[in-house]
């Protein structure tokens, strides 16, 4: 009897492991920054390079930090969803224009619409390194205390907005 059951058990174990493996996302690396203060930055604004924005300017507000670039193909698919999210006015959306040409970036916003309350420039990628950015687009949610509460890697989908972002933002807006 065991002779027949043992291969079956082995097969089930193997099948379970393989099935789990199919649903893993090895490209999504959990960020060690969750629950930590947002890394400090002070960077020129894309639309007004003479002015700078720092993370302290956003204290007391719930904000999204979206890493984007005009050279990034998946940012293009994400863009309309960000535009819709911006219309809900649920939270401030700050863009990090990552390793981009300012002119190309401004052209992109003029063409596709601008969901960002403000975009800052990170032409040499240093702010990106501080935030642990390894793939564009990435989206962080920062609470009123300035703590990073969530990180999304890859383009945000409408389901992500409905199921994750909006509920989380509502919860953080209710916090003091």
């Amino acid at each position, binding site marked *: 009897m065991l002779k027949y059951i043992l291969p079956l058990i082995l097969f089930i174990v193997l099948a379970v492991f393989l099935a789990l493996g199919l649903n893993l996302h*090895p*490209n999504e*690396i*959990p*960020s*060690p*920054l969750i629950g930590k203060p947002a*890394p400090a930055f002070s960077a020129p604004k894309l639309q007004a390079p003479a002015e700078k924005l720092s993370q302290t300017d956003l204290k007391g507000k719930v904000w999204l930090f979206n890493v984007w670039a005009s050279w990034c193909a998946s940012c293009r698919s994400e863009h309309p969803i960000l535009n819709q999210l911006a219309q809900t006015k649920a939270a401030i959306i700050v863009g990090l224009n990552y*390793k981009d040409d300012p002119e190309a970036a401004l052209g992109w916003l003029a063409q596709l619409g601008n969901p960002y309350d403000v975009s800052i420039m990170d032409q*040499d*990628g*240093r702010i*990106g*390194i*501080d*935030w*642990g950015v*390894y*793939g564009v687009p990435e989206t962080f949610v920062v609470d009123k205390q300035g703590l990073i509460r969530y990180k999304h890697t890859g383009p945000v989908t409408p389901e992500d907005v409905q199921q994750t972002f909006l509920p989380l933002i509502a919860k953080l807006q209710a916090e003091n």
Partner: protein
Amino acid sequence: MKRLSIILLLVLSGMARAGVEYREFASPEQQQAYENLTSELRCLVCQNQTIADSNAELAADLRRQVYEMLQQGKSKQDIAQFMTDRYGDFVLYNPPFKLKTGLLWIGPVMFLLIGLIAVFLFARRKKTAATVEMSVEQQQKIRSLLEKGDRS
């Protein structure tokens, strides 16, 4: 013609060099530290390459970061810490032993042990199967047959 093409190739070879990063180090130790670090840090874009191997832009930025930190006199530990603070243990090719990485370190030993136990059990079962056990009745039958044979 041959001479001309050699000259042309020599002139053009400078362009090939332009793609290689040129770094100056204060000491051979610092260069060694740079080489060790860049070959121990994972490029997060192309996850099976070190940042020394990878041509991805992020890898180039991280190499620059390592270089600058070494120039500032930071130790290897400082730099490894800087990277794990931002990218997690995954950035290290040699991750520390923790609860989360436990399976990674113990896994191979565990599988080796399971394999050895399986081989041991299998070998023992084979051995016992070789000796055929007989019931009391069978033994009596053999004995009676042998005795019959003796009489005739």
